[in-house]
């Protein structure tokens, strides 16, 4: 900056010296002042009119177009973004609903299955019990029957044995009574 300043001062000094030497600047010669003024006004008027009528509106139009395009594009982008966001939300909602539904269905099926199993189990148990009871009855009946048949068989065996040993025929009713007596005493041990 300092060197520039000194340079400037030096040049101004040279200039003034030269001005003094040459005595006068062409700028101050009024011969062509009118001509310069005339041509300046003419050229500048033409320039001004062509610029203000043609070129500036064109450039402004172009700039506005670009700005509008950018604005539109940005707006569109924002719109699409919002749309996609809402869609995403909708999607999430649907997903959540579906999940809930799935849970519900799962729960319902489970409970119905449980109920079914329960009822089946109960009826099965009942049936089993019935069967058991029936079997028991049969068994007890069989037992009763077997007692009487055992008594008859043992009575006949006893009479046979006695007949073979003694050759006498014993009173059947007395044998029967005796067998009954013995069997009553001992049968409880086996049955």
């Amino acid at each position, binding site marked *: 900056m300092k060197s*520039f300043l000194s*340079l400037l001062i030096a*040049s*101004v000094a*040279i*200039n003034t010296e*030269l*001005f003094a030497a*040459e005595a*006068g*600047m*062409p*700028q*101050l*010669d009024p*011969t*062509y*002042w*009118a*001509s*310069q*003024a*005339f*041509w*300046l*006004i003419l*050229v*500048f008027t*033409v*320039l*001004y009119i*062509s*610029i*203000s009528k043609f*070129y*500036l509106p*064109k*450039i*402004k*139009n*172009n*700039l506005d*177009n*670009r700005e509008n*395009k950018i604005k539109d594009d940005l707006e569109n982008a924002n719109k699409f973004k919002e749309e996609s966001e809402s869609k995403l939300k909708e999607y999430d909602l649907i997903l959540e609903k579906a999940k809930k539904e799935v849970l519900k269905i799962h729960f319902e099926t489970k409970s119905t299955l449980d109920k079914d199993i329960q009822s089946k189990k109960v009826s099965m148990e009942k049936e089993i019990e019935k069967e058991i009871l029936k079997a028991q009855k049969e068994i007890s009946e069989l037992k009763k029957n077997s007692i009487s048949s055992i008594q008859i068989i043992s009575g006949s065996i006893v009479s046979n044995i006695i007949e073979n040993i003694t050759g006498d025929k014993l009173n059947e009713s007395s044998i029967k009574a005796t067998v009954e007596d013995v069997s009553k005493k001992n049968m409880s041990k086996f049955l």
Partner: protein
Amino acid sequence: MASNPMQQFTVRRIGPEINIAGVDLSFTNASLFMVISATVIILFLFLGSKEKKIIPNKLQLIAEMTYTFVAKMISDTAGSKARPYFPFIFSLFMFVLICNMVGMLPYSFTVTSHIIVTLIMALFIFIAVTIIGFIKHGFKYLSIFVPSGVPAVLLPLITIIEIISYLSRPVSLSVRLFANMMAGHTMLKVFGGFVVSLGILGGWLPLSFSVALTGLEILVAFLQAYVFAILTCIYLNDALNLHH
């Protein structure tokens, strides 16, 4: 004498003499370079606005940047009311800038280095701004000379100073541009003359100065066009938005 640094500013008649009502309106080299500058501007704007692309090419980009540059300059200094004067200030800025830049070419003529040219532009601006001020505000526009918040004792003095400063606007505006362009070109010519006179042995120093000065002058050429335009905006702002 070829090495006279002021010779480059001489105005010469080109072609026939045009004489209208006793006034010499001949086409001169100054007129020629005005026409060349205007042609350059129009060509630049034509090529810059020819294609309407969303993504601009280089020339279109430069034209649009110039547009936004001037538009921003106006809206920053003179506000939105100055919008109708945008084409004028744009033309003015472009004309001064391109005249300055064309003047930087060797063997060319610098239109703005003539006081008559800058004075006419400055006077036009001064008168137009004054008329705009009176149209917008009537006689209240005279309050521009009476700043508010000044002690009553100082008021007459301040008013006189304000009037003088207002009236000296066209002079300062025109002389600033003219003197800058003339001084710069004279300086370049002087250093160029030194290069020749000092020859191959001693000419390198002024040559390097010349190169540096050329860069500086290009900066000055832009800066003076900018200053000219922004001062116009400031004067316009005074006329449009009356407050002190």
